[in-house]
């Protein structure tokens, strides 16, 4: 199996890495998070229009470079290394992915706006009662003439305060947890009847509770594909956060090793203590597993649905577990300074912890893997 990246992919990585090294140092990130909008919009603009990176995972007919999941993986890994809060996951992986798969006029109109950096998409799928069940949906989309009327409440919608568009899951029919009747809609974020309660998240992003009250939307807002499309897009997103986790885990290992070489206690660098050496070796081993599973998941995204789901769940469960090990031990090995806001390591730990639960906990994914892989 050839696992090497081609030249273009290598360049993509290098371009983004160099740009992020200049823009995402600890102090700059801190300033962004503390600003009123919680971000620096100029960075996204630069990634899209100056560096032209947003075109990487899109087809040439949409103005893209013809890449896909591998390109997303590379980008997410680099974002993870600096714990960037850019909306690549929501806009490019999820929004762009849904449009790519569904095709049609909406894709033709919106993908170029994603590539240019003008469109930012937030994914409104979770509901307060639903935990990780994508079909547990109370938000309704009632047919009304040629269009629909949306009503409901979506919880913890990452990037919603920044979004120009919302990608919303809603029910056109069926009972609360029925797979049939769940559909995906892409709508402008400022449609009348949409209200938000915005807040920061513990891992540095902004998110919202989003409420829909008799929101009239056109029929063309529907992306055909139903729950199957939604699951496919969420699997792609899940693998993308595994890639982000890979960047985070590696960085936590590196920072921990560096710190222990400098921190002295008992007259020597604490890196000299064998318990810490072995622990850091274990952290390194686990970080390698994260990278391997991010790659495995990415490579299986184009398999049939059952194989894809099993692979993605296995990847995410393993990533969750390894990331927890790396994160907890990174903090422990730093001692007191690790649990303060003053050093980067704690901020990596916070984002890593949120990834553990994002798109499903370890238990959720092991459960899904078992259900798909072993006879009942």
């Amino acid at each position, binding site marked *: 199996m050839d696992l090497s990246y081609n030249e273009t992919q290598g360049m993509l990585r290098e371009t983004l890495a160099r740009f992020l090294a200049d823009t995402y140092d600890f102090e700059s990130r801190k300033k962004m998070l503390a600003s009123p909008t919680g971000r620096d919009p100029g960075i996204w603009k630069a990634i899209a229009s100056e560096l032209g990176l947003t075109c990487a995972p899109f087809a040439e007919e949409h103005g893209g470079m013809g890449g896909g999941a591998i390109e997303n993986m590379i980008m997410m890994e680099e974002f993870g290394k600096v714990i960037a809060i850019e909306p690549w996951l929501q806009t490019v992986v999820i929004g762009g992915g849904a449009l790519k798969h569904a095709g049609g006029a909406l894709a033709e109109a919106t993908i170029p706006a994603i590539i240019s950096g003008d469109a930012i998409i937030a994914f409104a799928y*979770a509901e*307060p*009662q639903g*935990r*990780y*069940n994508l079909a*547990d949906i109370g938000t309704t989309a009632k047919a009304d003439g040629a269009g629909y009327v949306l009503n409901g409440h979506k*919880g*913890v919608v*990452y990037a919603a305060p920044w979004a120009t568009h919302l990608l919303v899951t809603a029910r056109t029919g069926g009972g609360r*947890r029925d797979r049939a009747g769940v559909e995906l809609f892409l709508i402008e974020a400022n449609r009348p009847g949409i209200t938000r*309660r915005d*807040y*920061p*998240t*513990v*891992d540095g992003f902004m*998110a919202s*509770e989003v409420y829909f009250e008799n929101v009239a939307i056109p029929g063309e807002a529907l992306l055909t594909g139903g729950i199957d499309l939604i699951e496919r897009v969420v699997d792609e997103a899940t693998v993308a956060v595994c890639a982000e986790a890979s960047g985070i885990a590696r960085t936590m290992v590196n920072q921990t090793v560096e710190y222990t070489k400098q921190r*002295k*206690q*008992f*007259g020597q660098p*604490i890196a000299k*203590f064998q*318990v*810490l050496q072995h622990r850091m070796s274990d952290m390194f081993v686990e970080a390698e597993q994260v990278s391997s599973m991010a790659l495995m998941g990415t490579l299986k995204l184009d398999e049939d649905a059952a194989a894809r789901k099993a692979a993605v769940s296995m990847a995410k469960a393993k990533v969750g577990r390894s990331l927890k090990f790396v994160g*907890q031990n990174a*903090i*422990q090995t730093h*001692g*007191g300074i*690790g*649990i*303060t*806001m*003053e050093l980067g390591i*704690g901020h990596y*730990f*916070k984002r890593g*912890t*949120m990834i553990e*639960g994002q798109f499903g*906990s370890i*238990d959720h994914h*092991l*459960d899904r893997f078992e259900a798909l892989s072993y006879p009942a």
Partner: protein
Amino acid sequence: MPFGLSMVGPVIYTFGTPEQKAKFLPRILSGDDWWCQGYSEPGAGSDLASLRTKAERDGDHYVVNGQKTWTTMAQHADWGFFLVRTNPDVKQQEGISFLLIDMKTPGIEVRPIITLGGEHEVNEVFLDNVRVPIENRVYEEDKGWTCAKFLLAHERTGIAGVAGSKRGIEKIKEIATTEMDGDKPLLSNPFFRRKVAELEMDLTALEYTELRTLAGEAAGKGPGPESSVLKIKGSEIQQRITELALEAAGHYGAPYFRGFGEGDNEHPIGPDWAHRTAPSYFNVRKTTIYGGSNEVQRGIIAKMVLGL
């Protein structure tokens, strides 16, 4: 606050002069005085004995200069008990004294350190020519390490936190009974339920280990190196409880609720308990670090108990 009642209280009670006992113990008991612990320094964490904050005699006072860090609740404390170096020329442990310092003394500056959950509970404490009456020294000059070690053993017993962990597990069961996972309570989810049961199991083992330690104490054996067992297991259990609570919160672990601002009547996002879960999980990583890290505790068991 355990710093008065279960930490400096026993030290004064055991090593203090009659005057010190009369002055401090009643106000510790009544809760009139809040205390903080000035042990750790930027360069002296696990290696506490390497501390450099120095106290030099000037008539009937010590003049104290240096920096402490991680001082819990120093921003609210009336008094602090400090380890200071009174003799730099002897073996590290033999030149340390134990001082009681009024936190309002001129020359003391307390600066906040913000921890991962956004809390202000620890501080840096700067001491610049702080004058402390010699009568506020507990036990002999240069013999403070004896008090320090005595106190650390007490701190480690307190750190087992059995009662708090029991409440924590009850709270999780309560949450998991109302929080739904599909059409069943979360507590019916076999994976979640098993983790709660394992926690109860480990907590029970800890509880009986503590009871055995206390029985030994009642029979005249002070809390010795065995308290390291309590510290290790107790701190790990506290961490697992917060981990499980965060898991229960699902998506609603993510919102960061800054608290009720002035004129802000907004309720937290999601279930009313959920917004605390992530900050607690982050914050409670401290339990395996403070009070002598768990690595240091394992070192103590290896050396003092196993004789290695």
